[in-house]
């Protein structure tokens, strides 16, 4: 009988303990609306924190104490009264989440692939690499190298059939620019309201050279074709979409403005004479390209408190 009494006592104690645990978890549920109330607008920040990277720890530990709702309220309205404090992660749900990605002091290696878009007669596929160093989070300097592969368009073939004319064209071989860039626009979007993704828009200008080669109007006289080194100025805008702490998806449109030389109308005996009498023209070579950016170091630390 005594043993039974002990057993029942242990049983009651355990049940009471479990019941207390349930009562504590109730606070977490009550607190959720408090956080929601402060998430106004399309980018409601409290909820973003909850669902995003910074909110992950909070969601794991919401059911740890009954004093948490008060702490959330305090953050919003200021402390009303002295309450018991704990080291609880309701603090991880913040009104304004921090930027998801910091670039200052980091280097970016960005392979790219693109296509020229504004020439009716010849298009170029471009493959290249950007190397950028970020002086601050919004300002960078860098180098870009490009290698081009040409393709004649249908229009280049039709112009002979339809008008009995051949086109004066140059192909691009390769090029390089020194770039400076700035980030004026930073944003975030919700992917079907399930996850928050951060992005930015940049503007840059570069100075460099593009190496081009004449495509002879008469294919039999390609030996008279010559090569140029064309001074190039390259303004552009682009975007980075931040995927991880060290990886971005990049997209850009850029105008490579170059002073190129074309095959003269008159027929000259060799490439040197032909080049000396070449016609110069300013060319706008618009190019769109996409790529990925890989950052070193691969990690970053926030320097300011949340």
């Amino acid at each position, binding site marked *: 009988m005594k043993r*039974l009494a002990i057993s029942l006592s242990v049983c009651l104690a355990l049940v009471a303990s479990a019941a207390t645990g349930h009562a504590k978890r109730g606070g*977490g549920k009550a607190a959720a609306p408090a956080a929601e109330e402060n998430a106004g*607008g399309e980018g*409601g920040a409290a*909820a973003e924190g909850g669902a995003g990277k910074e909110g992950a720890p909070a*969601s794991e530990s919401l059911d740890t104490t009954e004093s948490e709702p008060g702490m959330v309220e305090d953050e919003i309205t200021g402390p009303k009264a002295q309450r018991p404090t704990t080291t609880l992660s309701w603090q991880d749900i913040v009104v304004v989440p921090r930027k998801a990605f910091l670039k200052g002091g980091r280097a970016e290696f960005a392979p790219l692939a693109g296509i020229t*878009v504004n020439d009716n007669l010849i298009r170029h596929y471009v493959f290249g690499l950007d190397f950028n160093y970020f002086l601050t989070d919004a300002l960078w300097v860098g180098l870009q190298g490009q290698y081009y592969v040409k393709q004649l368009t249908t229009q280049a073939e039709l112009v002979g059939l339809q008008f009995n004319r051949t086109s004066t064209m140059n192909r691009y071989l390769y090029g390089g620019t020194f770039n400076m860039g700035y980030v004026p626009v930073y944003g*975030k*979007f919700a992917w079907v*309201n399930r996850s928050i993704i951060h992005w930015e828009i940049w503007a840059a200008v570069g100075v460099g050279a593009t190496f081009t080669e004449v495509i002879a109007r008469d294919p039999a006289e390609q030996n008279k074709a010559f090569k140029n080194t064309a001074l190039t100025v390259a303004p552009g805008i682009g975007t980075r979409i931040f995927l991880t702490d060290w990886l971005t998806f990049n997209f850009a449109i850029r105008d490579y403005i170059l002073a190129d030389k074309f095959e003269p109308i008159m027929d000259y005996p060799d490439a040197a004479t032909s080049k000396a009498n070449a016609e110069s023209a300013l060319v706008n070579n618009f190019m769109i390209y996409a790529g990925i950016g890989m950052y070193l170091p691969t990690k970053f630390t926030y320097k300011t408190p949340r």
Partner: protein
Amino acid sequence: MLNKHRFALLIALATVSLPLAAQAQRKSPLADAPAIRKRFELRSTRFEAGVGAGSTLNQDYFHTITINVRLAFHITDWLAIAGFGDFGVAQVSTGFQSRLTGSLDPAGGGNVLREPTPDQAKASLQQISSILGGQLEFVPFTGKFSMFGKLFASYDFYAFGGPAVVNVKTAGDPGRKCDQAAPASDQGNPNPSRYYCEVSGPKFGPTFGAGFHTYFGQGVGLNVELRDTMAQLNPAGRDTNGDGLANNDDLQWTHTWMVGGNLVIFLPFTAKVSP
């Protein structure tokens, strides 16, 4: 006595294990929650109407400047049905066209019968009168951006697709429609009309592309679209298949790229707020 003892222990274990099991099944209240709460549903069940302007891109002979009209109903925050009309108001010669026609001999091509004079070349060049169509729009991206850390605005990106009709005309009067028989032409009796014809009227095809809205408050926004409309066209109005004459067999599926911007208003003027 032993049985009673075991029975008590069983009760104790069952009582303890039930809440533990319940705890294991509990999920965070933020799990599966929407990424954004209390967001302005700037599109859901709202009408959108807008006017603006646009231009064709990458045309061979003429850039068409258009006045645009747009109407849409957003069935949900991420799905809309829309109609648009882009009406050509100006035709701007491209640099390629100017250089090409400038290189042609006004006296003709001599013994190369297909070579036109500048006037003959211009006569059959195609221009776009209007593009009309309907489209379904899918809005997977919505968000906010800041400019210089000072200006803040909501925006969305969308992709669209649907049917469209491109109405085309020629820059001049070629004197023969492409569905009419081409006259004979040879060195003894040259007839330039064999080599060019009039492509005009409605041409049907798909339209697709992407666009975005950026909002000034809840009721007014800027809408920008990049659109590709495909149709069977012949921009030069001349032989494309190499059979030595111009007719409807020379029509080819052609991409017409356009970019346009509209100032749009949304009705009702205020947006709902999500839970």
